[in-house]
């Protein structure tokens, strides 16, 4: 990156600095903190106390945003013409409750690309488990941590009056993704909107069962389900983003920045390979993949993580799969500021944390952002807290002038060196997983779970021992704190949701429902027995859509899938 003369001057400058540093270090030797003598990133990567031009790796070449390998961003314009989209996570109570929060945030200026509206909607725990609200396990969980939406009829309550052609809807689902997408499509058809006109995202998060402890489909069946959805959408829903890589969940489970990007790249390789087996071309599916990453506390590491991921994703997809479409090499990112590092103690302090996270994500060049609300470590955010979280984005977008310049941290000796370090460490992790036979194998044998858990324990030990400082938790504690005003879901939600699903079952066309469910049974049975290379004829998702048209509920559709594909705890304890 630098000429001989600069490198030589750099070495001299470093020698001078080193001598000075050691002189000071000697004087304070008995009180030197770890970070003074043996600095590390939060991922545990060794870093230096000061960087010089010769620390920038030889491989770092001047690069333009929008050019391969996209370290500096997917596009030549970063935020100059189009800011990142505000994508706060919304979802609680009945569909009407969720809708009122959607409208509140829209009124407060929540905006997507070029003035369009994005709705980032999370389903409740009952739906995530693939159940209906009248199941015995649903009690106390209906409309909690997400919206009580279980049918095409609930979709109507949620989107009433909105033009589905003009909005972009992210459906935050776990393993019930096929049921939810089928219901959304069935509802859209009733509005005269074809699947091909719909814009939005499905998460397709089967891969998260490698590191998230919820009950799940077996890993191999999960991978097939992911491919089935991609295959169907690539043919029928060209504007739909099929798959989201849930890096955030790795961080949430205690994984490091290196693990977050390394695991997602390893899964990317597995998924594209599987798509190829099912007869799909990488350049036809990759442009519709996106990513969700956390932005956590180690400011520079979190920025460099994103820069590194853009580079290694592009190089890996090009080298391994020969893709040529730039969109196949792009890492389109939804940032979710870290919820795991927020504290229940002194909750207002979380506003400061999330502001730093959001600022880092903007520096890294994210495409869309959810900023956690300050009261999120305690309960579902209140309307005021959700609005303040949106204001964090708006202040950064409107007041700091950082959006004028693309990839503003590029060229920093530290940032370039750390970007390279993160890329190398993540590629090493990918190599480890490939050596075991790929992501699904490393999931099945528990390896992924165990490395994430080790990181989680290491973090906890650092916090417990006070080496990792958390304001309000292990330092600057406040003693007795006033009880915060917490959001509570209306107790009527349960009764109404149960009543609605019962009425739906009573009133729907029973014969049409039975026929559709019979076809779904057959399709699921056949799907369960199919190999990856037998997929691609897209029978399962259309059968689920037929069932949703006949007003099948989430619990009913998922019941069929669970029965034929298997369902249970993701890991041995």
């Amino acid at each position: 990156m630098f000429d001989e003369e600069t490198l030589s001057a750099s070495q001299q400058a470093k020698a001078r600095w080193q001598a000075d540093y050691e002189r000071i270090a000697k004087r304070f030797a008995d009180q030197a903190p770890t970070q003074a003598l043996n600095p590390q990133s939060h991922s545990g990567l060794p870093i230096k106390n000061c960087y010089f031009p010769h620390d920038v790796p030889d491989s770092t070449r001047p690069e333009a945003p929008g050019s391969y390998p996209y370290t500096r961003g997917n596009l030549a314009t970063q935020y100059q013409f189009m800011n990142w989209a505000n994508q706060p996570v919304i979802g609680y109570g009945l569909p009407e409750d969720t809708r009122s929060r959607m409208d509140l945030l829209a009124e407060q200026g929540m905006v997507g690309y070029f003035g369009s509206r994005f709705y980032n909607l999370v389903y409740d725990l009952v739906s995530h488990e693939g159940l209906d609200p009248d199941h015995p396990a649903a009690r106390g969980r209906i409309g909690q941590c997400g919206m009580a939406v279980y049918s095409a009829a609930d979709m109507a309550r949620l989107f009433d009056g909105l033009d589905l052609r003009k909005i972009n809807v992210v459906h935050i689902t776990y393993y019930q993704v096929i049921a939810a997408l089928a219901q959304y499509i069935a509802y859209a058809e009733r509005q005269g909107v074809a699947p091909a006109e719909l814009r939005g995202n499905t998460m397709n998060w089967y891969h998260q069962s490698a590191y998230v402890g919820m009950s799940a489909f077996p890993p191999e069946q999960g991978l097939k389900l992911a491919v089935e959805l991609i295959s169907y959408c690539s043919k029928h829903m060209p504007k739909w983003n099929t798959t989201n890589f849930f890096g955030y969940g790795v961080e949430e489970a205690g994984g490091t920045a290196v693990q977050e990007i390394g695991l997602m790249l390893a899964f990317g390789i597995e998924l594209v390979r599987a798509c190829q087996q099912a007869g799909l071309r990488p350049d036809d599916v990759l442009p519709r993949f996106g990513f969700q990453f956390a932005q956590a506390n180690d400011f520079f590491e979190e920025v460099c993580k994103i820069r590194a991921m853009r580079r290694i994703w592009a190089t890996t997809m090009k080298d391994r799969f020969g893709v040529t479409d730039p969109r196949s090499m792009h890492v389109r990112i939804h940032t979710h500021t870290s919820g795991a590092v927020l504290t229940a103690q002194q909750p207002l302090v979380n506003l400061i944390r999330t502001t730093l996270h959001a600022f880092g994500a903007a520096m890294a060049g994210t495409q869309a952002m959810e900023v956690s609300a300050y009261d999120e470590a305690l309960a579902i955010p209140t309307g005021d807290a959700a609005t303040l979280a949106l204001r964090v984005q708006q202040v950064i977008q409107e007041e700091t002038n950082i959006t004028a310049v693309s990839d503003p941290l590029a060229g920093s000796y530290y940032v370039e060196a750390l970007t390279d370090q993160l890329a190398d460490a993540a590629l090493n992790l990918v190599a480890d997983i490939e050596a075991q036979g790929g992501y699904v194998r490393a999931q099945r044998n528990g390896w992924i779970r165990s490395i994430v858990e080790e990181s989680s324990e290491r973090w906890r030990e650092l916090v417990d021992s006070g080496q990792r400082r958390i304001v309000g938790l292990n330092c600057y504690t406040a003693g007795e704190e006033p009880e915060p005003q917490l959001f509570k879901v209306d107790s009527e939600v349960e009764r109404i949701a149960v009543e609605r699903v019962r009425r739906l079952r009573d009133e729907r066309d029973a014969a049409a429902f039975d026929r559709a469910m019979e076809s779904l049974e057959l399709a699921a049975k056949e799907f369960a027995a199919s190999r990856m290379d037998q997929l691609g004829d897209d029978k399962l998702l259309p059968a689920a859509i037929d069932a949703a048209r006949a007003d099948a509920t989430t619990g009913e559709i998922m019941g069929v899938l669970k029965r034929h594909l298997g369902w249970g705890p993701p890991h041995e304890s």
Partner: protein
Amino acid sequence: MANRIKVLLTKPTHDAHDRGARYLARKFRDAGFEVVFTNFLVAEEIIATALQEDVDVIGVSSSAGGHMPVFEELMSGLAAASVDDVLVIGGGIIPDVDARVLAGLGVPAVFGPGASAESAVEFIKEHVRQRSAV
């Protein structure tokens, strides 16, 4: 031979937040407890596992709301099964106002975000019911 304290740690199947519970499982093992870790869908499953494994302590983790019905069903189910020598504690994201109600139900402690593993170990050692020596 001293009886080892046996703990059932359990969380709802649909609750993605298992980091705290799994960390506690390890710390409990380090402290010499025997630990069974499971997911549950309904409270009946907790009771069935507790009886089958003959545990001294049941720790229920919940970080996604909906904990009150679980504890209510668990406590009434244990009473119906005439189990009165098992210590039941909670963990995860459970607001103080709920924790006070739980104390009335016979769940004496909730270990929320930031509580140390040591405090949970100490609490169990102090409060585990003295069972008739085998």
